[in-house]
């Protein structure tokens, strides 16, 4: 899983049926210190994350489909948690 920050959303009306009624959020990837690494992903929101929040991003299809209970859906990137704190040893 990856750390990311929600920086926006993506609106799409013409899309694959599996993505109907799903919230797509634009997420900047972060390093453990919370600094953007330059990458980003568009993710389906499974936890109700809001703008500006640091989140836990899953980028693996089988797990994503399992969490959404949507077998066969072409979904790979999913927000599975809202991060409260990261501490490095």
């Amino acid at each position, binding site marked *: 899983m990856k750390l990311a*920050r*929600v*920086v*926006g*959303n*993506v*609106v*799409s*009306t*013409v*899309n*694959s049926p*599996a*993505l109907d009624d799903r919230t*797509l959020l*634009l997420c*900047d990837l972060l390093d453990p210190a919370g600094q953007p690494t330059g990458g*980003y*992903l*568009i*993710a389906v929101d499974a936890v109700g994350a809001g*703008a*500006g929040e640091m989140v836990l991003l899953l980028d693996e*299809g089988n797990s994503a489909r399992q969490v959404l209970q949507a077998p*066969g*859906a*072409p*979904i*790979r*990137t999913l927000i599975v948690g809202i991060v409260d704190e990261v501490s490095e040893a």
Partner: protein
Amino acid sequence: MQLARVTGTVVASVKAPGLTGVKLLLVQPLDRHERPVGDQVVAADAIHMAGPGELVYIVAAREAAQAMPDTFVPVDHAILGIVDAVTELPGS
């Protein structure tokens, strides 16, 4: 999933059996400010509605084939939707 711009169409008359009827489009992956990043790729159009010039979002790897009507197809990038708007938080 990431943003991409459709830059052209690809026609192949000789192809693997699973690709029959699959619409192929050339897409340029974009960063979140809609600037080109990386190489253009050929993506299957899973929604059958995308066309050149449009902003779309794509998925790579196994999930690309999952987007197609027949899911056991040799496809590694697929267009999942046409983007109407990308809204960014102020200052991000």
